[in-house]
């Protein structure tokens, strides 16, 4: 490469390629996750839930952590992806990979169409627009029950993955492994994306959109692009959720879905991609433990955790999580999504 002739350029390139390398700790993280599925077949349903929620949180991290765009409407894409996969399966196209692809594509299309709404206005406007879109879609799904089954949901069955591994109630471990594979592949893509020039441009937009624009970065186009990718990820998470639980219901579009996924990401820390998965694990295990003790009031403790988190300072808390996690995963890049 020509740029490598200069000393500075060489050092930058060395730094970037060092960043791009998979660390031992990261490999250990994924192996541990895989081992958990094999080691605890009785908890496969819970692990599957964590993996799917982790993918959903990853989708939010793509826009919040990488580009600094707040959204309260991520549930829109989860719901659309889930319904796309479920409707496809109910029409006898039961292949899960096909459903996954269609779910992600439909969600991506929706993301692409609604992304221009994010380009105007401040954070509050974005929160409201994203929330509004997800509520609109929930209402649409509710009203068009000929397609979505309305409040009754849909009845469908899923063919074995790749024609070999049956998933669902009888094959919960297979379902968890399927989710794991999808999560890993999509995570690897997101990881690559974060380190690409595109990802670096997004970081610039996150830090200061005006200056990024002044540097010649087409900020609008990049926001539309990452929002579309994020929507596709959320759609894939929705499709996985529909396929592995074989249930779709209108509550997929609910406000609390968008709020929960934000909690997960915040608990784990935004911006370094592992945060969503770690946060999903903490959130779901915590919910499982607390709701086993007090089934009706578990929300209270999650709420308390959030209030304490914000009052103490998210950064401080996230540092703690990261320090604890840095044994397992690499130290994240500096600069946090605000």
């Amino acid at each position, binding site marked *: 490469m020509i740029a490598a002739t200069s000393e500075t350029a060489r050092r930058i390139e060395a730094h970037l390629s060092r960043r791009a390398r998979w660390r031992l700790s990261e490999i250990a993280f994924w192996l541990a996750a895989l081992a958990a599925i094999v080691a605890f077949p009785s908890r496969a349903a819970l692990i599957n839930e964590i993996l799917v929620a982790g993918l959903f949180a990853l989708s939010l991290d793509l826009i919040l952590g990488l580009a600094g765009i*707040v959204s309260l409407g991520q549930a829109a894409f989860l719901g659309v992806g889930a319904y796309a996969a479920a409707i496809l399966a109910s029409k006898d196209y039961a292949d899960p990979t096909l459903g996954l692809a269609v779910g992600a594509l439909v969600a991506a299309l929706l993301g692409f169409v609604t992304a221009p709404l994010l380009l105007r206005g401040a954070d*509050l406007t974005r929160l409201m627009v994203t929330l509004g879109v997800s509520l609109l879609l929930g209402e649409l799904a509710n009203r068009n029950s000929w397609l979505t089954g309305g409040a009754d949901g849909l009845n469908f069955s899923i063919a074995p993955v790749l024609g070999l591994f049956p998933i669902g109630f009888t094959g919960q471990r297979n379902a968890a492994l399927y989710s794991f594979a999808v999560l890993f592949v999509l995570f690897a893509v997101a990881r690559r994306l974060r380190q690409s020039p595109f990802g670096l441009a997004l970081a610039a937009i996150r830090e200061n959109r005006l200056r990024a624009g002044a540097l010649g970065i087409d900020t609008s186009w990049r926001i539309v692009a990452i929002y579309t990718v994020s929507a596709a990820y959320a759609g894939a998470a929705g499709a996985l959720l529909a396929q592995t639980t074989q249930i779709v219901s209108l509550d997929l579009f609910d*406000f609390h879905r968008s709020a929960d996924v*934000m909690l997960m990401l915040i608990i784990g820390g935004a911006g370094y991609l592992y945060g969503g998965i770690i946060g999903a694990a903490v959130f779901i295990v915590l919910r499982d433990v607390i709701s086993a003790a007090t089934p009706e*009031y*578990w*929300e*209270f403790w999650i709420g308390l955790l*959030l209030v304490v988190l914000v009052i103490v300072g998210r950064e401080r808390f996230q540092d703690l999580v990261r320090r604890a996690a840095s044994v397992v995963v690499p130290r994240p890049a500096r600069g946090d999504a605000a």
Partner: protein
Amino acid sequence: MLTILFDGVAYGMLLFVLASGLSVTLGLMNFINLAHGAFAMVGGYVTALMMERLGAPFLVTLPVAFLVPAVLGVVLERTLYRRLYGASPLDQVLFTIGLVLMAMPIADFLLGDEARQVNLPAWLSGSLNLGGVGISRYRLFIVVVCGVIAAALQLFLVRTRFGAQLRAAVDDARVANGLGIDVDRIFAVAFAVGSGLAGLGGALAADVVGGIDPSFPVKFLVTFLIVVTIGGSNGILGALFGALLLGVLDVAGKYYVPSIGAFIIYAVMVVTLILRPQGLFARRDSR
């Protein structure tokens, strides 16, 4: 036709009182207070419980339904909210979602999850016949009360010294402080008024929405936010017009085209935000 229009106006007025507190905290003070519905729920419970347990008359409970959330608001503002005035919108959202998540189980724990009804006194139930138009007495009552509140609030914010100080404190807290305005106190009072109005709205709304239950803060959160976003941050009048617009559209929509239901108000909000990101009645230079 006129009845529908009137019902729409009454519903809009109700939305206004519920949301007017939010247009003080969110619209004026720029604090994204998603816990607003929790204060409304407290007000609704105060009225329902006072009537149920103490046999207090409906009108007597209303000031209490204002005061209790207002005091609660001050306490929370002094201890927690004030730390987050300068924080990022994301922090404010997370914090107030946390409060909502705590408020709902607390209400459930203390009062159970069935809805508490507010039984209207005889002189407010039934309907009047004005020139061939059937008008529910309670809705008329709501329109009158809410109209008075709207006027009082607008005068309070625009004409009084306190209102001027509040607007100054919001525009630039440091300069306002330097001019000898006690910004801390102003914000605390404004927050109390906002919370109290929410409580009053909750008390008035209890009958219309079929009782108060622990899920109230979330059920109407979105509606409040829509009112304030559509109205923009231009104080009280924006929220009033936003609320009336939504109320009439929602009631008319549910009557004429019931098949699309709540679709209308969400669509109105999204379209509004596309066309005018700062709200319909925003200041030109709003921040």
